[in-house]
């Protein structure tokens, strides 16, 4: 009898100790930021720098004492550009990892697949993908960071209008990103007094765009070309444009090509092409008073120190997503999901790498057109114009 009761007491003691432990752990539990990114696969040029940026800044925040006295932990999964995997990982983030907020989704496809999940679970979700559909119509729990393809088109059309170019040919790939951009290109033309006179497509795996460009060349009255796309085909298109002697027709590309790879891959063919890019890419050329200059330069420096290579324009999306999340958690003074959501929506004049964010209940992106900078490729690098 005695032995039994002694055991009983020991058991109770152990249970008590365990409780005490978990209690202590509760107080120091890290703030968990969950993320699913296309670190591998076709969109790895987005996901890879994004993942690097998230890890880098979680580290830095922790070194400087964390947030609200708690450590920040990022949980990152590689969804490889696959919407189905994105859903699986988002569910795991919510149900198993029990993250406080999701910052992720490199592509629009992955993001849109996860949106219903975030809405249902009532967890704030900051997407790093481009298309407008993510925040139009506004979804209560969903926000997004980077400029949209619509803004890239608007910025380019604005510039064409300034130069008096009205007859435009569109060329782009058959992928989702390209098609969405192309659709905006058609939809917005009227608003800027622009006429789309030719529209050519290539497959994402094509290795020569000369036929498409020849058709554009032979379409009468083409004054400018607008390209939609990203990756290797855009470099090839630029090179073919030069080889076919079409440099007398000004060429604009959307922001999908805003990386040094595009210029290098085109082998000199990108000279003279205009592109709306995030300030990050031309940080050093920004005038001293520009509020984005300092933020961008600091980010570039930190990234270079950590990874020994300059950040691409796309890592900036993750920089902004991470910092807006942290900023909101600080202002909410808690990780309560509803409070954090409200705080994100009240983000005002937040200076990020991609622009200056002011969110409202109607606008869950918060960027205006002037956060895009128009650049021209000159001597194999970006030259700020305007």
């Amino acid at each position: 009898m005695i032995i039994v009761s002694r055991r009983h007491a020991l058991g109770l003691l152990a249970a008590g100790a365990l409780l005490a432990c978990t209690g202590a752990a509760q107080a120091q539990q890290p703030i968990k930021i969950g993320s699913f990114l296309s670190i591998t696969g076709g969109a790895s040029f987005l996901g890879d720098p994004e993942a690097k940026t998230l890890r880098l800044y979680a580290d830095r925040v922790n070194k400087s004492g964390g947030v609200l006295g708690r450590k920040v932990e990022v949980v990152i999964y590689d969804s490889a550009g696959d919407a189905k995997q994105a859903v699986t990982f988002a569910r795991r983030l919510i149900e198993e990892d029990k993250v406080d907020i999701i910052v992720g989704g490199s592509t629009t496809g992955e993001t849109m697949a996860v949106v219903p999940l975030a809405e249902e679970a009532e967890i704030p979700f900051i997407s790093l993908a481009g298309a407008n559909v993510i925040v139009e119509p506004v979804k209560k729990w969903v926000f997004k960071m980077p400029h949209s393809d619509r803004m890239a088109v608007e910025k380019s059309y604005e510039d064409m209008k300034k130069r008096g170019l009205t007859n435009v040919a569109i060329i782009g790939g058959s992928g989702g990103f390209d098609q969405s951009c192309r659709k905006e290109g058609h939809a917005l033309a009227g608003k800027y007094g622009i006429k789309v006179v030719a529209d050519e497509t290539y497959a994402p795996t094509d290795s020569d765009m000369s036929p498409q460009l020849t058709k554009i060349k032979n379409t009468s009255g083409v004054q400018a070309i607008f390209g939609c796309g990203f990756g290797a085909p855009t470099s090839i298109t630029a090179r073919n444009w030069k080889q076919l002697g079409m440099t007398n027709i000004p060429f604009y590309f959307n922001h999908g090509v805003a990386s040094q790879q595009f210029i290098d891959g085109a082998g000199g063919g990108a000279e003279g092409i205009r592109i709306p890019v995030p300030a990050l890419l031309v940080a050093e050329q920004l005038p001293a008073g520009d509020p984005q200059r300092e933020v961008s330069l600091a980010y570039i420096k930190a990234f270079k120190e950590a990874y020994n290579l300059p950040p691409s324009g796309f890592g900036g999306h993750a920089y902004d997503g991470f910092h807006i999340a942290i900023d909101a958690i600080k202002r909410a003074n808690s990780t309560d999901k509803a409070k954090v959501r409200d705080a994100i929506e009240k983000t005002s004049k937040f200076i990020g790498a991609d622009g200056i964010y002011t969110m409202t209940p109607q606008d869950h992106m918060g960027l205006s057109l002037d956060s895009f900078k128009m650049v021209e490729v000159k001597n194999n690098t970006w030259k700020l114009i305007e």
Partner: protein
Amino acid sequence: MAEFLQFLFSGITVGAIYALVGLGFSIIYNASHVINFAQGEFVMLGGMGTVSLMLAGLPMYVAIPLAVCLVVAVGLLLEKFAVEPARNAGVITLIIITIGASILIRGVVEVVLGKDYHRLPPFTGETPIIIGGAVLQPQGLWVIGALVVVVAVLRWFFEHTRLGKAILATSYNPLAAQLVGIDVRTILLVSFGLSAALGALAGILTAPITLTKYDVGIMLGLKGFAAAILGGLGSSYGAVAGGLALGIIEAMSAGYISSAYKDAVAFVIILGVLFFMPSGLFGTKRTERV
């Protein structure tokens, strides 16, 4: 006319690329009736290998032969450690093994060499050649020239050397070949090495045009395979004819019909050809004798 010429030049350039890749399929198919789906990966390794060696500071004329040697080594290792142990398992199993190998190779390159796309400088400058108002890339001439040389060498190899004849003999009847003293295992090893070398060469020659990236082998492999099938698997002339036909059809349909549907047009034509000529344009009809 200038427009037509432009589409033709573009088609021939791209077609020559497909043909060069397609030839690699033919060699291994000849020796074993296996379709080596890692062929595209050999192409990618050739391009990526050269780019990486050049980034490491080697001059191009050193990087190219070194890259070819590396790819041949990969091809031999693949045969020795993946294909040969399973050689009694049947053709389908071997094909699946090559698919597995291609995924492995792609993954390793993705992790080790990164996910960026790269470009090799063209061998003889950028200045395009203008003929009749149409533009031809100088690098395209390199590809076409290499194609002619490769076909001639292969023809000589298969018809006038003991090793080449041994490969053909093994292809017709492995058992009989073994009985007359041909080492069938070595034959398979040689054919993997040969097609790896050819793949690497294709990857290096085309990298200035197509750019190169860890996953470029999927596309080039698929198009090369389509070229080989269209021309008739196992026939060198077939792969060349198939590749050129595919390239020209793509360019013409992009130019004259619709750039959005050019791939669909090309595949409909391939299906049509195979419907009437199941063994391809130059394929020999295989008859099963009992």
